[in-house]
């Protein structure tokens, strides 16, 4: 079927088991709200349009605590407004999905133009030292797959997961085939199996991820945005605070191999490797093919997981490539991470565009010839 990126997000969410959506209208993410307002009640789910984006994510977290897979969708300005609540979902370990269809900023910026300028907002938008999982999508098909992944990761690791899509991918229509029922792996949160009196809601386990009881299922416990002990009660004891914050990080970092996804195209012999994500990765692939036709050995590392940043993938291409090129629709957000991993091994070049237009294959090709 022919689907728009935002429509594919909806299909992915429903397939993943999402049954609650709260959101606030914002371009260019509004289609997600509109379609879910039609489809969620059909499957006994709930759609509600809240009074703002903070309220939207609050309702999403509440619904998830009551046991229903939940999400919201927004764009840069709305994402900025809701930033106190991703932090709550992180510290209280509540699974939920936030889709950010990126548009040009700062502030109201460019509501209908593409951008990739929320990469750092997704990483550090909420205050405090926290881990975060951020995924991206380059195609309509990937909007579907990554939405399912986002739900699976959120349920598995008990954390909010952010899906960053740029406006081009969100509004582009492409052919895609929807998976058969049995092809998609769906992960549901692990519930406690012990009797309520033995349940320790924020217990440190080998995986770092405690079992999660839903409200109303007999496990009465305390959920708070305050730093808490393993029972969920606020604590000011250093010997409880330290291990708790460490576990929040560890539960993500010890699962890097599962969370971090990337694609390598002809990087085995590449003198120059392009590191790209989102719609820019599509232009980069075209540029790579054309450069190869001209006899330049160019490869492409396409990041699918944005955060935690895939250091291992960059290190892998650094073993071969002496030049890296990072094209982005921002002033250089991921390129900083690439440079951090590079530590002077290769030359890292950027191609930044912030004029509201996409980065074309020609522009990348020209930059390749410049830096080659």
């Amino acid at each position: 079927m022919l689907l728009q990126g935002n429509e594919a997000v909806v299909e992915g969410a429903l397939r993943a088991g999402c049954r609650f959506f709260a959101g606030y209208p914002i371009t260019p993410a509004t289609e997600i709200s509109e379609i879910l307002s039609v489809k969620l009640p059909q499957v006994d789910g709930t759609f509600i349009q809240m009074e703002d984006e903070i309220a939207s994510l609050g309702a999403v977290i509440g619904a998830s605590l009551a046991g229903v897979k939940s999400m919201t969708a927004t764009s840069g300005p709305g994402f900025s407004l809701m930033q106190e609540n991703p932090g709550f979902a992180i510290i209280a370990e509540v699974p939920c999905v936030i889709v950010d269809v990126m548009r040009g900023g700062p502030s109201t910026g460019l509501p209908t133009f593409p951008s990739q300028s929320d990469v750092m907002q997704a990483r550090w938008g909420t205050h405090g030292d926290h881990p975060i999982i951020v995924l991206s999508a380059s195609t309509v098909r990937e909007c579907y797959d990554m939405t399912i992944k986002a739900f699976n990761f959120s349920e598995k690791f008990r954390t909010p997961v952010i899906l960053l899509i740029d406006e081009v991918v969100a509004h582009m229509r492409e052919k895609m085939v929807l998976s058969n029922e049995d092809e998609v792996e769906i992960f549901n949160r692990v519930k406690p199996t012990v009797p309520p009196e033995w349940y320790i809601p924020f217990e440190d386990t080998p995986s770092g991820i405690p079992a999660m009881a839903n409200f109303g299922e007999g496990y009465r416990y305390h959920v708070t945005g305050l730093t808490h002990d393993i029972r969920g009660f606020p604590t000011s004891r250093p010997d409880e605070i330290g291990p708790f914050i460490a576990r929040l990080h560890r539960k993500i970092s010890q699962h890097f191999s599962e969370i971090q996804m990337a694609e390598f195209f002809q990087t085995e012999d590449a003198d120059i490797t392009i590191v790209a994500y989102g719609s820019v990765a599509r232009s980069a692939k075209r540029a790579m093919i054309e450069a190869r036709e001209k006899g330049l050995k160019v490869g492409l590392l396409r990041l699918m997981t944005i955060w935690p940043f895939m250091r291992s993938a960059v290190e892998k291409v650094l073993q071969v490539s002496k030049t890296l090129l990072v094209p982005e629709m921002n002033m250089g957000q991921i390129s900083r991470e690439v440079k951090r991993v590079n530590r002077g091994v290769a030359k890292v070049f950027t191609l930044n565009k912030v004029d509201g237009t996409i980065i074309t294959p020609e522009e990348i090709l020209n930059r390749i010839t410049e830096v080659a």
Partner: protein
Amino acid sequence: MAEVTKLIHKYLRHDKKFPHVWCPGCGIGIMLGALIRAIDRVGHEKDEIVLVSGIGCSGRLPVYVDFNTLHTTHGRALTFATGVKLAKPSLKVIVIMGDGDAVAIGGNHFIHAARRNIDVTSIILNNSVYGMTGGQYSPTTPYGMRSSTTVYSNIEQAFKISELAVTAGAVFVGRGTVYHAKLLDSLIEKAILKEGFSVVEVIAHCHTQYGRQNRLGTAVEMMEWQRDHAVTVEKAAAMKPVELQDKIVIGILVDKELPVYQDEYEKIRERSKAAAGR
């Protein structure tokens, strides 16, 4: 065993480390007692109750009681409560807020939850001040009063929380004080039994901050002030606005019927399925 002891054993968390965070003489304890007695009389199972709070002195209330408890971000308690209620309507959702929570940072959520008629009970502790952060003025600090951030006197007019709730569309609104403990019991009980968005405003004293800065005396003296300035809704109806200026009108301000959000949404589900089947 005395009745109060039974209630303490049944509803307070045994594994939570007491003492609580509140100052000696604080009115929150009276509100908590009234809430527990009301829940006990209504007869809800502890598993069915979700107690949600915001930030501040009142925000610390849920941690002590043995329900599903959720201590959210400042002012956002009603948004979380909306999600819990709509995701699982069988749960009884009660929200505890302070005046800062309900009508400053969360004012928007408050009027919209009322307008939607979300089936939750809001209990708002109004002590006219931000107590936990050291006594700054709030949207309910009366004109002319002092606080840590209005040392030269407050030049803003105060919100009337209950009247705001009535205007925003709440189906049940009651106001009590921590002095009138029995009235508070019955207001909270009625609010919990009411289907739709119900509000109980609890006028309380903060002798530690507001009282000290305005030389209003001890906790007991401030409660005596509540006693001396409270007039019932019935009495107030016959009084002139000028006579009511420094009075607290207590009792039930509104009790009406409106379609409840979750029931209306169930109809939407049926309509959507019928439309999809066509």
